[in-house]
């Protein structure tokens, strides 16, 4: 288990006073301090880690958010923002000595601006609600995490979330054009807006994916896109995961960028089929779902091209959706894959590494071999087109030692991803879960530079500490310049 920072005794000793002060800012039910109610916030989607907060605050206005943050800054109280609590990396894990700031009441869409193809939403609006608000206009919001019915746009911004369509349409960062952010100092700042690009540093780009550590998002402006005129999904079965992996590289190499390209292995297919009855082939070692979108002529041509590449790579079956209903059914199994796996195992641990696409087959084989080494099963369901793996390590937290083994297995998978040229996380964020693996990708200097960015926003380190960075930063030390003497170290350097 990864250790969280030691709680500040002085803050814990002042709990009653802090709760009372917060009640003057957020009246009524908005401040929660009873243990029974606090347990509702004790974990997010990374359920292996649990910690009730010192107090939970559910503000209803931006002014309250600003006041709460200002109070916390002045009193040295830590703050953990929370959206829907679906993070799979423990990003919203509370702190024993911290305020849990729930943004769920910010659930209104403020504006639908058709002429500029954007939607202005409060941070607690769910991802799906944005698409639903513009569906009637033939528009949609492209990033679509499988958790889209529950997760919030504020959480998406914090995690830079993806989904099955980000292969072609980008992650959150490519689709969010503005945010309003409350800083820990209690300033309300706007970054971006309805216009293109920043003038000055692209702080919007740095805020997206910052895991709640730079500020609290109080409003989000997203770009919405016209729905493609048509789309068809293919279900392609393979006798081996290598074949499926090679097919991915083949499709991308041929210059086809599908709307989505996902792979599920046999275990995931069985679980999803039993749950959703999507008509998945149960005999395949790996199942690929490819979605091709565009006008009819284009979709026809792309379907033929992808089918041909699939056959070259040893596809054993191939079905094309014949109706919109069937297309959605093909996806339903994929989108429900995590809960489906949840039905066949008491607990699962979801990993999120990205690898170069050419390594998919080899890495999946290696993971299979590791199942034996760790004595745990692993189901794979992932964004193949991006090379973004989601190995789901199955375990039972009630069996002694299984959680530790699951974590060790997960770490081994992530190290493998980095070894083959990949990264620790493609879309779920570092959070608590991958915090102590950061040194597999980054040097101390790399991490120090990232923390200096954090220092610019939150010099006191009060926002979501204990996440992302293996060591808490001390901003004064990081800012110090180590002067190494004045002589030009290489007099032979050509100058002219």
């Amino acid at each position: 288990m990864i250790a969280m920072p030691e709680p500040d005794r002085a803050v814990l000793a002042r709990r009653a006073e802090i709760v009372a002060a917060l009640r003057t800012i957020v009246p009524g039910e908005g401040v929660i301090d009873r243990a029974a109610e606090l347990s509702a916030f004790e974990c997010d989607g990374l359920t292996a880690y649990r910690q009730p907060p010192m107090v939970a605050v559910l503000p209803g206005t931006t002014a309250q958010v600003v006041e709460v943050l200002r109070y916390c800054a002045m009193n040295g109280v830590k703050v953990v923002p929370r959206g829907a609590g679906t993070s799979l990396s423990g990003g919203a894990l509370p702190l024993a000595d911290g305020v849990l700031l729930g943004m769920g009441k910010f659930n209104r869409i403020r504006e639908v601006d058709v002429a500029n193809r954007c939607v202005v939403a409060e941070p607690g609006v769910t991802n799906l609600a944005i698409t639903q608000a513009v569906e009637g206009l033939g528009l949609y919001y492209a990033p679509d995490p499988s958790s889209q019915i529950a997760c919030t746009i504020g959480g998406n911004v914090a995690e830079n979330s993806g989904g099955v369509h980000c292969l072609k349409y980008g992650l959150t960062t490519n689709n969010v054009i503005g945010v309003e952010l409350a800083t820990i100092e209690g300033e309300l700042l706007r970054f971006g807006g309805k216009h293109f690009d920043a003038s000055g540093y692209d702080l919007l780009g740095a805020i997206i994916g910052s895991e709640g550590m730079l500020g609290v998002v109080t409003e989000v402006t997203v770009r919405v896109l016209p729905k493609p005129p048509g789309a068809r999904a293919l279900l392609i079965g393979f006798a081996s995961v290598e074949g499926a992996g090679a097919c991915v590289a083949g499709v991308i190499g041929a210059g086809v960028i599908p709307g989505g390209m996902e792979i599920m292995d046999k275990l995931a297919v069985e679980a999803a089929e039993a749950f959703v009855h999507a008509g998945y082939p149960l005999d395949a070692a790996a199942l690929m779902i490819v979605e091709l979108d565009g006008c009819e002529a284009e979709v026809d041509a792309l379907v033929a091209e992808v089918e041909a590449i699939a056959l070259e790579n040893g596809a054993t079956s191939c079905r094309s959706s014949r109706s919109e209903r069937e297309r959605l059914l093909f996806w339903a199994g994929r989108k429900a894959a995590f809960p489906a796996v949840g039905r066949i195992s008491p607990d699962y641990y979801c990993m999120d590494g990205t690898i170069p696409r050419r390594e998919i087959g080899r890495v999946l084989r290696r993971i299979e071999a590791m199942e034996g080494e760790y004595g745990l099963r692993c189901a794979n369901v992932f964004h193949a087109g991006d090379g973004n793996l989601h190995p789901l390590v199955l375990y039972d937290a009630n069996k002694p030692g299984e959680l530790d083994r699951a974590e060790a297995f997960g770490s081994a998978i992530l190290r493998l991803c980095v070894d083959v040229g990949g990264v620790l996380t493609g879309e779920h964020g570092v959070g608590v879960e991958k915090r102590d693996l950061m040194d597999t990708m980054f040097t101390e200097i790399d991490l120090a530079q990232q923390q200096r960015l954090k220092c610019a926003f939150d010099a006191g380190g009060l926002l979501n500490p204990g996440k992302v960075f293996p060591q808490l930063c001390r901003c004064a030390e990081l800012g110090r310049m180590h002067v190494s003497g004045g002589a030009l170290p290489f007099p032979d350097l050509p100058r002219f």
Partner: protein
Amino acid sequence: MSTFTPSDARETAETVAWAAAEGRALEIVAGGTKRGLGRPMTTEHVLDVSRLAGVVTYEPAELVLTVRPGERLAAIAAALEAEGQMLAFEPPDWRQLLGSSGEQTLGGIVACNLSGPRRLRAGAARDFVLGFSAVNGFGETWKAGGKVVKNVTGYDMAKLQAGAYGTLSVLTEITVKTTPRPATSCTLALAGLDDEAAIAALARGLNSPFEVTGAAHLPARSARRSGVGAVAGGAAAVTLLRLEGPPASVAWRADALEALLGRAVRLGDAETRAVWRELGAVAPLLGPGRRVVWRLCPTPSRAASLAGACRAAFDSAEVFYDWGGGLVWLALDQAEAADDGGAARVRAAIAGMGGHATLIAAPDSIRAATPVFQPEERGVALLGARVKRGFDPRAILNPGRLREGL
């Protein structure tokens, strides 16, 4: 004043570490096609990074290219074209606009976050930077991001580095995402629309499902300057919508778009390439006489009223629109623009339209006297200054290039 020309990342770091220890300011150039862009600086020394060139790895099937930043854009474009790929953000060529010569580099394009007409749909240069190595103002070599297309490990430092104009770190290696080239392209040209109607037509095109990858409007005066006959010949305003993709799809979408927007002239692949290259290069405003050129990024639907306000403020104002109105190029006679390049009146016009105005082409004297980049809100500017200190506490990297003190 000396010019340092390090040949690799280590020498770059040593040079910067020396400059940091001595507190000597460096102007980073890769040769200098964009030296006339941004605020003029008075730096003691020049750090010429053009020897940091060459392709490190290019894996077409992964859509990933890693180069040293001094690699010339033309060479990169040729290497990608040979594999049927491209940089989707369509880096523009501003050499004529800025009156410079030489070759552009990827480092310069990324440092300035410059994107062409396809930015509208594909994203900006910043959206394609997957990772990089760099030397910060402490003289430390550091890296961020990765070499895969999807990655959220740590803060997204690439966004910050793109568009920082070399004021945060010196890039020593850049990894970008490449994109398959469309098989063909076509442009629909609608004649004779006034600005307001044109922006509305572009919005209808962009809201349609027909995947418009370029949306521009040239009022009559700037249309006449086009080298493409079908655009210049009509002596009228021209509204342009670009479609790209497989031939059958492009043809189908062109029909559908014409049914939506009314009769249009169609430009084929070669003319399409030519006209959008011109637009990226701001060629329609490169008229005779001494001019200053502004780049305005308003809320797209406000573009025509913004242009109207500029015309009301300046007799010499001439504009054209790109990005469906999200980009308005404005040229003014230098004499009428006066000492501040017209900044006071231009920024008064864009105030309230949500967006920013950047003075792109103007003599050094004007760019020294007036904020080239849109002044930021106080809190944001303060934060920006703190960010700068976290990368370059002694302000030795391109100091003052973005704004005074940054």
